[in-house]
């Protein structure tokens, strides 16, 4: 079995980040094209803060929108992939440090992962 040396870990992380960014950019671009195709003549109004509709604030609603090939849902899914990329990097590091039998850094990395999970899943939006 190949050992997860620091160098090998770094190479894998580099590839992971690249795939995440490219996938995210592709989804955002596709969503922007779909949205603009239907709304090119809209008058955007971002001067006043209203907050996004709930369907664009939670993972379930975003997935439904994206699967329906709805422009804003697709963009939001791409943005979720973007946010998930560094989170995946931290998640992978837990595994890699475990493979190195480095208990201290397994704990350190899990602490970071817990904070990130709280932000992504633990915060309720106000309607």
């Amino acid at each position, binding site marked *: 079995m190949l050992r997860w040396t620091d160098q090998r870990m770094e190479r894998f992380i580099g590839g992971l980040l690249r795939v995440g960014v490219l996938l995210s950019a592709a989804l955002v671009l596709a969503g922007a094209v779909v949205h603009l195709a239907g709304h090119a003549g809209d008058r955007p109004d971002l001067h006043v803060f209203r907050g996004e509709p709930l369907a664009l*604030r939670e993972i379930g609603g975003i997935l439904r929108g994206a699967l329906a090939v709805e422009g804003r849902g697709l963009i939001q899914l791409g943005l979720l992939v973007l946010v998930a990329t*560094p989170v995946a990097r931290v998640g992978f590091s837990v595994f890699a440090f475990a493979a190195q039998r480095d208990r201290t850094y397994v704990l350190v990395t899990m602490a970071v992962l817990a904070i990130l999970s*709280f932000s992504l899943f633990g915060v309720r939006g106000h309607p």
Partner: protein
Amino acid sequence: MTLLATSLLIWTGSLLAGFLGALTGLGGGVVVVPLLALAFGVDLRYAIGASLLSVIATSSGAAAAYVRDGLSNVRVGMFLEIATTLGALAGAFVAAHVPTSAVAVVFGLVLLGAAGLSLRHPASQAGPPRPADPIAIALRMDGSYPGHDGRIEYHVRNVPAGFGLMAVAGGLSGLLGIGSGALKVIAMDDVMRLPFKVSSTTSNFMIGVTAAASAGVYLARGYLDPVLAAPVVLGVLPGALLGAWLLPRLGGRVLRLVFAGVIAVLAVEMLYQGATGRL
């Protein structure tokens, strides 16, 4: 203006912002937020949300290139991410409870500081040798990076102070939607005494994770508008990568002065608009 025209203008502006941010070493966020708020009249919360996303894109995109060079220190980065992510969460919560005009004033002040910092010379690594921090030894943070003749060893110092500064950097990132890269580099460079090459790549590596910690809060609070974020992210990313590629080929002092001047003007404008309650 129609959505198509606005989106194209915002995309062009974001491309320039990413480019400028990379050339000054300050990151796209510090230029994108004033651009959206001042030039396009976008509500500061939407501007900060879109900027934060572009910060994640830039960090991941650039880190993908650097990380394979074996320059960044994964252990130092991961340990300090505990501080930056906690700070970022706190910053994002504070952002939801203070008026945007106050956020604008803080943004202006941070921007002024950043403009000054961008002119500073990189810290000299010379100086009397100091004992390595026992915490750094216990956490096996000392490392090495590839130099001209084999790998160069280095020690990590002053972990608690670096950790504290990182929490502040994370807080500013979550409050203002910026990467806080300059402050992160100072913490690792001047305080923890990492070699410049290591600190700048490790900092860049950490920025994405830090920003992800506040992005969840922003999403739940409805700050992330897809129609605005799309041209911003798609503009800042290529702009920043182009700037990072061009940086070592330019690197003139005059150029840095000009850019620092631009940032300072934006800072004053943010301060003024914030103080008069217009943002």
